[in-house]
């Protein structure tokens, strides 16, 4: 590093304001100061090393290389959270959270109230910026640099805890607005319904079992049907990753089972992260489970292993 410091010192000297003409001569005539060692000379016969500018990009090369190494490790992941922290008025909703979701994986996230599950989803979908930490999608897209609409466009869909559908539109229109495709305002103004669009809506109606309700206003659907419509809207969006927040809250047992079936179907083609309190439902999903507590990961693994973990029992499942 001494050489770098020397080089930057020289540059600083050259740029010191000494009047225009003298500094010009010092550039053109004065060679490297022999007392300070020639920065252009090679070492051990290697070709001369280039003068490293004091710009951060050059001086922090080591840090960059380390980051690139990390980047290689995260390249194959679909969702990569590392050391994410977010606090609201001093309360740490998310505390040094690290979580990796592989491509094609379905993951269930459990945890007591206030464990930071919803805040985590807010961070992934761009609603909330983390105070620190890395959030990457598809290995190399830094999600902290994008807003909700951009992130949705990249292929992350989200279902809210409280079913959020467009109540004054019909079921069909809800799906139509969610269908993947252009998000340009002018195109929407001159949009015409066409056959492929109809067909995709039919498929989703069939998958979510809402065919008979297609002309109904979403406001008139039952709670469970609204949840399904919202999942259907996620499917219409055709995202790579679905974030599903408490899909079975307020559902009957039969509906819960149906929803588990639906999500298993969906996970054939999409990666899914499900936040849920209902342990029967999580068991029915039969996937890897992450337990959050106070904003960080408490335990991770198959459900049986996680639910046997004494710390999980302590904070969440109850003794």
């Amino acid at each position: 590093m001494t050489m770098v410091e020397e080089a930057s010192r020289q540059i600083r000297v050259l740029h010191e304001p000494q009047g225009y003409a003298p500094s010009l001569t010092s550039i053109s005539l004065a060679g490297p100061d022999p007392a300070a060692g020639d920065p252009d000379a090679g070492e051990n016969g290697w070709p001369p090393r280039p003068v490293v500018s004091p710009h951060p990009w050059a001086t922090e090369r080591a840090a960059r290389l380390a980051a690139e190494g990390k980047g290689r490790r995260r390249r194959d992941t679909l969702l990569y959270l590392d050391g994410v922290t977010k606090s609201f008025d001093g309360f740490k909703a998310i505390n040094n959270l690290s979580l990796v979701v592989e491509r094609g994986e379905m993951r269930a996230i459990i945890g007591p109230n206030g464990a930071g599950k919803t805040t985590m989803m807010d961070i992934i979908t761009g609603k909330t910026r983390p105070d620190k930490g890395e959030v990457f999608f598809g290995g190399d897209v830094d999600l902290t640099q994008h807003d909700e609409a951009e992130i949705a466009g990249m292929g992350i869909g989200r279902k809210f805890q409280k079913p959020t559908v467009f109540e004054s539109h019909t079921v069909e229109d809800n799906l139509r607005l969610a269908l993947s495709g252009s998000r340009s305002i002018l195109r929407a103004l001159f949009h015409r319904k066409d056959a492929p669009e109809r067909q995709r809506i039919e498929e989703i109606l069939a998958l979510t079992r809402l065919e008979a309700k297609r002309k109904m206003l979403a406001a008139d659907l039952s709670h469970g049907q609204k949840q399904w419509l919202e999942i259907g809207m996620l499917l219409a969006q055709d995202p790579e990753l679905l974030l599903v927040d408490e899909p079975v809250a307020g559902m009957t047992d039969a509906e819960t089972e149906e929803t588990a079936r639906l999500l298993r179907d969906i996970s054939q083609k999409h990666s899914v992260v499900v936040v849920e309190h209902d342990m029967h439902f999580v068991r029915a999903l039969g996937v890897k489970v992450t337990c959050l507590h106070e904003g960080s990961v408490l335990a991770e693994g198959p459900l049986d292993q996680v639910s046997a973990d004494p710390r999980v029992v302590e904070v969440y499942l109850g003794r």
Partner: protein
Amino acid sequence: MIFARHLGARVWILVAVLVAAAILVPAANLWLPASHPLHVPNYLVPLLGKYVCYALLALALDLVWGYVGILSLGHGAFFALGGYAMGMYLMRQIGGRGVYGNPLLPDFMVFLNWKELPWYWYGFDHFAFAALMVLLVPGLLAFVFGYFAFRSRVTGVYLSIITQAMTYALLLAFFRNDMGFGGNNGLTDFKDILGFPIAARSTRAALFAASCAALVAGVLVVGAVTRSKLGKLMIAVRDAESRTRFLGWRAEHVKLFAFTLSAVMAGVAGALYVPQVGIINPGEFAPVNSIEVVIWAAVGGRGTLLGPVIGALLVNWGKSYFTAAWPEGWLFMLGGLFVVVTLLLPRGIVGTFDHGWDALRLRRRARLAERGGSSGATDAVPNPAE
């Protein structure tokens, strides 16, 4: 909207009524003798024309309030800006016929001892340029204002307050003499428009017909926009803005589009209003005017095409009638009207009618299904879940 389904026929009825009015009112004024029972008196033509302009303004507000959920309390500003653009054209048409006889400068500039025309008055002697400015000035203001407001996600009451502040700021600015828009007195003493004397019966009749045509165009534009996919998106933004964002839509662009289009419509309404009332002054920027527009739309029924038109016509007719019959009572009636509508008719006249009609149909269908027995006929009844 529940009533979006049977909206089509009604819009065409409204259009037909407006077209008929555009033809019949001038005809009844110009060609029927004054003794004829169907004769429309001279004073009534510009008065009706004024109402029609108000209806267009209410429709413009409804586009942003009823369909996108942006409660603008500053739409009077766009109306007034359109009016000022038209007023500037009319001022330039006066030419040497002013009190001071200056062929170039309007009277108020001569009075203020100005020696030359300010640069922003150039071009307004051409009607085409003025017409362009009628669209451009309100549109541009709305675009810039909306760009910053919606990008920063200012919503709800905060947005309403800054729209109110905007129109108030313009009011104060236009009051100043050195702005070059006639200060307190505004622009008046108009002589002619497109070469026709502005106070002539035939010109007034033509202006009335033009106002009706503009309202028809406004109804058709708003109808087309709100029934497109973008219109559905507007309602979606109104009801669940964050949902649209997480679906990848840019809610701020949707709002900006509606707000700008609405401001342009308001500008057109203002431009047609000014030649019919013969004056434009800073009073048009008064916050109270913008609030009145909100009342018209609320009374008629927001989120409908007919509502704001009916609301504007009814309330303004009431205003004209009661300010003559019982002058000191009008403001109380206006306030009372707002309270009554908010408490008893939150959907407005058209909305309440639609809602009642829908409920009636649902009940009748349910009764029919009951009478038809329990065998599968219940399928015909939509599930009234809540």
